[in-house]
């Protein structure tokens, strides 16, 4: 099967899974105890007021009507209106996406930049202090709850040392870069860096640790294989032996695991955002759940679920790209 057909097939499967996600979320909503009206109406609202609100939101329609309305709306990018604020859910949700993407990408970059060299060093200096340090770090890293890590970082760097801000995202990277390009003013970039540092470390630590572990054990495996000896025997410099030959094969399974761990990344982002008041999807989803703002909950879960599915397809494609042995099936 050709690569293109493979991607098309995976995408179709992905769409099916997204449809499943939409349906599950929809069913979740209607199997949930507690009428959404009680969360929308004021504490002492009268039954008439509740009834009127229900009519206004279309909540008195039969379930299947609401479901098909929702599905057709979704195809046009319409996720309905927030119960609480009356604004478009899709607008609200997509306004939050950049913050989360920014955080996730920053964390991933931190993780990759640190973990892969660390894993390689750890594997090539086995039983040396560098290896023990890396192993200890990665063990602690995968065992530390990231919200606690975030709090401790705030305690040390913000509360005690007063060195970095505790929270918030006063400016996005896009705006900061825009200002830099248009006015040459880099205060925005500095500000952005100051605010994203602690959240990115908080979210990135687990992945740094995980990828370090995977890289280390993968490298140990690969370095023990005879193609590495063969590469050395033909006189290839050690850097090429490690980074071109061994690392390449190490990263193939690492990529797969990372794809599967994307959910963890998003879950981690949710709690990291909560710790740092980062205005991303995570804080939106938690707030929406607390207020039973169903259009927002649904929208967020669908956006998160779809991105998971499609990022995994991208990971599969990348996997196929780096691994010539893959058979498209």
């Amino acid at each position, binding site marked *: 099967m050709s690569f293109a057909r493979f991607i098309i097939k995976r995408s179709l499967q992905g769409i099916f899974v997204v449809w499943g996600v939409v349906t599950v979320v929809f069913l979740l909503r209607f199997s949930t105890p507690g009428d959404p009206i009680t969360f929308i109406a004021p504490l002492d609202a009268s039954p008439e007021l509740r009834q009127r609100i229900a009519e206004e939101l279309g909540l008195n329609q039969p379930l299947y009507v609401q479901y098909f309305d929702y599905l057709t709306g979704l195809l046009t990018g319409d996720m309905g209106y927030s119960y609480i604020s009356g604004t478009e859910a899709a607008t609200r949700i997509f306004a939050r996406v950049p913050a989360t993407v920014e955080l996730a990408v920053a964390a991933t970059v931190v993780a990759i930049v640190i973990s892969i060299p660390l894993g390689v060093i750890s594997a090539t200096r*086995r*039983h040396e202090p560098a290896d023990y340090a890396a192993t200890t770090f990665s063990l602690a890293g995968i065992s530390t709850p990231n919200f606690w890590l975030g709090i401790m970082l705030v305690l040390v760097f913000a509360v005690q040392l007063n060195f970095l801000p505790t929270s918030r995202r006063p400016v996005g990277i896009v705006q900061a870069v825009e200002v830099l390009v248009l006015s040459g003013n880099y205060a925005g970039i500095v500000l952005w860096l100051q605010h994203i540092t602690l959240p990115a470390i908080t979210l990135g630590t687990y992945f740094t640790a995980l990828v370090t572990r995977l890289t280390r054990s993968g490298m140990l495996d690969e*370095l023990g*294989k*005879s*193609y590495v*000896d*063969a*590469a*050395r*025997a*033909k*006189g*290839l*410099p*050690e*850097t*090429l032996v490690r*980074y*071109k*030959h061994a690392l*390449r*094969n190490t990263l*193939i399974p690492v990529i797969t695991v990372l794809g599967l761990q994307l959910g963890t990344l998003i879950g981690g982002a949710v709690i990291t955002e909560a710790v740092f008041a980062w205005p991303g999807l995570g804080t939106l989803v938690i707030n929406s759940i607390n207020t039973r703002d169903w259009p927002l909950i649904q929208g967020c879960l669908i956006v998160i679920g779809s991105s998971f599915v499609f990022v995994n397809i991208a990971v599969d494609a990348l996997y196929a790209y*780096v*691994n*010539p*042995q893959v058979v498209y099936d």
Partner: protein
Amino acid sequence: MDEILRVRDLKTRFFTEEGQVNAVESVSFDVRDGEIFGIVGESGSGKSVTALSVIDLIESPGRVTGGEVWYRNADLADEFREKRSEAVDGDFVDLRRLPKGVRRSLRGPSFSMVFQDPMSSLNPSITVGEQIAEAVEVQRRARANPRSTRSRTQGYGLGKYLVDSIVPGREYTSTESKERAIELLEQVGIPDPEARAEEYPHQFSGGMLQRAMIAQALAGEPDILVADEPTTALDVTIQAQILNLLRDLQREQDMSIIMITHDLGVIARMCDRVGVMYAGQIVERGTLGDIFENPVHPYTEGLLGSIPDLEDPSPRLSPIEGNVPSLLDSEMGGRCYFADRCPNAMEACLNSIPEYDTDSGEVVGDGANAEAVHTARCVLATREFDAAEALGDDYFGDRAEASDPETPDDAAEQEVVSDA
């Protein structure tokens, strides 16, 4: 014929969690110009480690702890005659005393290696052509630089690699190298080499892959090719082709081959001279005729007894009873390591045994009788077996049991260790 390589008293140790493993214990041998020198032994006897030690490919937790590897190379000898006089002797240099960078720079143009399993000896995620081209490129770059700077330019940095991977049109290997790689593939008998060069190892058959492997090893036009069980992983029908190829190439290029195998058939077919290894030691060496016609060491005899005779298949194969010892330092006594399996073990075998010249019965040591052709580490080189001094059948059995209460489970573990 002159020697191209003289290995003296080579010792390689592995420092594992179970303890120190003496994988190579005081090994000495010579390789001459244009000959095929065979090293034969059971798996776990240390043959591969010997080969890897010679070309300095021992990785942690292993380390070459002693011995000398004299390599004949006039240029190299001139270069280091002043700087490191102790490492130079005539045209010979002791590789063990040269800087690591120089030793590394010898891989390819001086030494090269063909591995046992071609499937795992080529990188599965890089095309075959690219891998061979790399080997060519290493030599091209080496030749472009004077030797004195070679060890430095060998340090092809990570930064450079990243730049090369990202910037289009920049690669480690040049077009010339790739073309040369295709020539090499053709030379080793791969049909349609241009197309095959673009393929990945998993698209090759085992025999083709071993040819490619040989092409890669030949890229640097080495003086010495180490072939570590080059046919073991292949079908019987393919084995002969590969062996023929190796021999033809050896003649064409006038290189020396160190042939490592457990298969006496391969030895008989290919080699000029042979060393028999057991438990990290060369227990007997000599010409093909010496070993096959006139073996002294009971282990050699045992090995010979274990090849089926095509002309007379009726006698039962008599494999040597028992297992290769663990090679754990703590468990190695000062005795003949084969004694516990030896049908002719005598009390004399309980002492440490030196190498004897089988003709004179004298000890071959550093310098002394070094030119001896046929040697054996066995008291039988000096005297006849004496049944009166023989050790009882259960002599070692009891001991083994007493020293290791966890047998037989742990035997399996030790095997794993000794394979390291």
